[in-house]
């Protein structure tokens, strides 16, 4: 008797589990960077609080007025530099490793460090160009979101029905969330296409991903949405447990719960990537817009053609490409 073939979400979960080194590495980088970003704030706060009896209301509870007066302290501890830098460095780090992560999931094997970084470097500019295009596409969505918020605000103020503005705002948020998920899914597929097919032209990857998404929208969106939902549910559950069950002074427990959530959120994002990779490989050939102009390349070790790290620097120098 053979086990039934798992769906892409199940297969993706298995893939994340088998290649969990990736998960732990990304989590470690996330934690270390956030830790470094926290240090300046913690040092300023420590200077104010560590020898003060005035810190006590913050230990046993969370008195907002004490927190407020700490925020207004002349040394402005919450404006200490570091936090934004940490977030930005993590963002760049994730941009850099996306190619390598996808390569691992496509091949479903552990890469050597050199192979991994070659893949990262090889696909970096493609991921970067896709990021720029994504940001461009986010602009109209942001404009739409802003218009919807203004509209719902106006309804909240002017409409005869008191609730109309609120429900329009809720519906708008859901619609914007939906659009963002679809956009991300499209670009996920484009990145996957660029890696699997070793496609240098991101516009072709985007076009292929668009066709794939259009023809398989329901299954792909359901794949992405389920995992997002799981991430949000874990966050809500953790917050509920933390607020209701964890004493205000149980810092270690708070830390543990926070880290479980942070880890799960990274895992969920990788789970989406892995599930998409599984789906991509389980599907038929990429539907071609013009059959004569596109032939699926072999799914073999592509990074033999990928640039080495020195080459990557040359690419930096010769960017933008023709």
């Amino acid at each position, binding site marked *: 008797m053979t086990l039934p073939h798992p769906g892409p979400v199940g297969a993706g979960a298995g893939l994340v589990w088998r290649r969990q080194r990736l998960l732990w590495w990304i989590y470690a980088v996330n934690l270390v960077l956030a830790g470094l970003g926290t240090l300046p704030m913690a040092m300023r706060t420590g200077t104010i*609080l560590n020898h003060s009896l005035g810190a006590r209301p913050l230990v046993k509870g969370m008195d907002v007025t004490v927190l407020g007066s700490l925020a207004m*302290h002349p040394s402005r501890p919450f404006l200490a530099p570091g936090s934004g830098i940490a977030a930005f460095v993590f963002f760049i780090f994730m941009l850099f490793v996306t190619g390598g992560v996808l390569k691992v999931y496509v091949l479903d094997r552990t890469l050597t460090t050199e192979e991994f970084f070659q893949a990262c470097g090889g696909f970096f500019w493609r991921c970067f160009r896709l990021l720029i295009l994504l940001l461009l596409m986010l602009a109209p969505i942001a404009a739409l979101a802003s218009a919807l918020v203004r509209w719902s605000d106006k309804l909240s*103020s002017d409409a005869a029905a008191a609730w109309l503005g609120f429900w329009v705002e809720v519906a708008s948020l859901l619609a914007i969330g939906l659009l963002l998920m679809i956009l991300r899914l499209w670009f996920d597929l484009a990145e996957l296409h660029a890696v699997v097919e070793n496609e240098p032209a991101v516009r072709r990857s985007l076009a292929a991903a668009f066709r794939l998404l259009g023809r398989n929208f329901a299954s792909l969106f359901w794949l992405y949405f389920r995992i997002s939902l799981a991430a949000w549910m874990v966050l809500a559950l953790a917050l509920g447990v933390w607020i209701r069950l964890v004493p205000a002074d149980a*810092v270690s427990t708070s830390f543990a719960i926070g880290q479980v959530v942070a880890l799960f959120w990274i895992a969920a994002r990788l789970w989406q990537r892995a599930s998409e990779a599984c789906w991509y490989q389980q599907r038929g050939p990429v539907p071609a817009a013009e059959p004569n102009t596109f032939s699926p390349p072999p799914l073999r070790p592509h990074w033999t053609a990928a640039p080495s790290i020195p080459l990557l620097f040359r690419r930096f120098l010769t960017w933008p490409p023709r």
Partner: protein
Amino acid sequence: MLSPLRWIAGAVALPLAMVPAIGGGSRSPAADSGTGQPLSTRVVHYQIEARLDPARKTVDAQETLTYHNLTGQPLDVFPFHLYLNAFQPTSTFMREVRRDGTRGTSAGSRWDPKHYGVIEVKSFQVEGQGDLTRQMEFIHPDDDNTDDRTVVQVKLPKPIPPGADVVFRIAFHDQLPEVLERTGYKRDFFMVAQWFPKVGVWWHGAWNCHQFHANSEFFADFGVYDVKVTVPQTYVLGSCGDEVARVRNPDGTQTVAYHAEDIHDFSWTADPHFHLVEDSWTGSGGTVKIHLLLSPEHERQRQRYLQVIKGTLDRFDRWYGPYPYDRITLVDPPHGAGDAGGMEYPTLITCGSTWWEPKGLRGTELVTEHEFGHQYWYGMVATNEFEEAWMDEGINSYTEVKVLDSLYGSGRSALDWWGLTADDSGTQRLAYLSEPDTDPLARFAWKYLSSHAYGAVTYGKTATVLLTLEGLLGEETMRRALHTYFMRYRFTHPTGEDFLKTLEEVSGQDLRWYYNQAVYGTQVLDYEVLRIDSDRVDWYEKNPPPEKKGQTLYRDLVLVHRKGDFIFPVDVEIQFDNGEKVRERWDGGDRWVRYTYLKKAKVDSAEVDPDHRVWLDANFFNNSRTREPDSRATRKLATYWLWIIQFLSQAAAWLT
């Protein structure tokens, strides 16, 4: 208010002669005084008949004002407030809003024609002196803005002798703005406030009649109001008066007559959607009818309103003095009309709520308590809100702290939600910390650095100043002082100096030194424990015996520094590692003080103001110093901060 508003159809109008019927249905404040005398010096008697046109958002009215000249001298000039003219782009009010913003409107906001408002005086007659409409001239006593039309002045041909009455007959037309700064309409809702020509106050030998400013409120004489309002029959009404008659007119309108005594302003509200909730509360002044005009979408907040208004009535009655009126009307503005909320009028307050507000957020309670408090500090103790805003807003913010603490518990009286807590005293202090030294309390309302400074100082700093004074005098003395101040000055116009006199008399202390710094000055109060140290007396020995708790002798040192210029006597508590505590009293006169002790114990900690009474201290964290560090709070905050950065980092990485 809180950080942050036709003349009747003649044929159907009720004759004013019906007014004598008033006493039958309501208790006038005079009846409670036990003397048979009016509670206030009734300088004015307004009789107004007004008709609302809900479609045009206008009010047409006829006002008859009888002014009793109690000034002791002949008067031939009379200034009147025309507040609604503030809602025009060239007014002083709008200039100031444009420059600094005000509640609900940010600085630099564009002019919105919906906010246009006007009060036009159609005719102005003086009994026995004829039609003086053409003699009216706009004046601008506070600035150089010749376009400001919020004060009009009329010179009479014949002066009014001392002790005589003069009767003004004024026809006027109001165009109401879409709700802003307390007044106006929103859909079918109308808050008709500052809507009629109101005479200035003869005060300290001159007319006191300021222009309407972005940061100022009002000032008027006490008197009697008989107001008839005609609105469609579908409308639910509320006002500052007792309803004394209601007539349904053949044209589908209704005319409701109100009467009120010993108040100094009159506003009314109308909305066909209001749910009228009626309740009552009985205190030392008798039974008070509670009218809650609730917007339907806030129905779930009904009990919160009733609970807080009864609790507040009870505390004010027990602590400060009886509430002498027989009614209090609470107006809950509908959605979109928030700018009409959070405002006080005599016996009528506008509150504010939302359908979703969870119980622990206490916004509904805070606004309701605050506005009711103004019945005492503005309504009865009628200070000049233009010139000494701290005396109504600030004293009221202090009593707000006391009442909310009593009703909801100290430490969580302003917020108790999902583990987050805040008390009202702390929020007042935070407001003070945001502008600790820009303006003294005693400054005309429109002369503050900014709209924010006005709010921070008149509300937050004054409350903090009075909480600190309570720390000095004791809670009971402070309560007695406020009781005395209320009973002595209710239905009059006291000043800050009257308040000081009362505080000094009740406490038996000279408080000028405090007043000069806290009320008239901008000094910042900040003490710090600069250093603690325990040094072995045998430090010079080459081979001293090992340190042994309870046996080694130390020279202990505590250095306290007055960082700010505000001088205030403080306690300093020193805790030693053998459990012993020593309290020192320092007058704060010098910039620093050093305490030294010879003990077989080390200093564990030293703390300035160990009982946490000096709320004005701008930095509580440096008030103490411990020998051993305790990093629990830092670790906790760092843990939360860490997680927030991780989460934000991941959110940013979602883009890749």
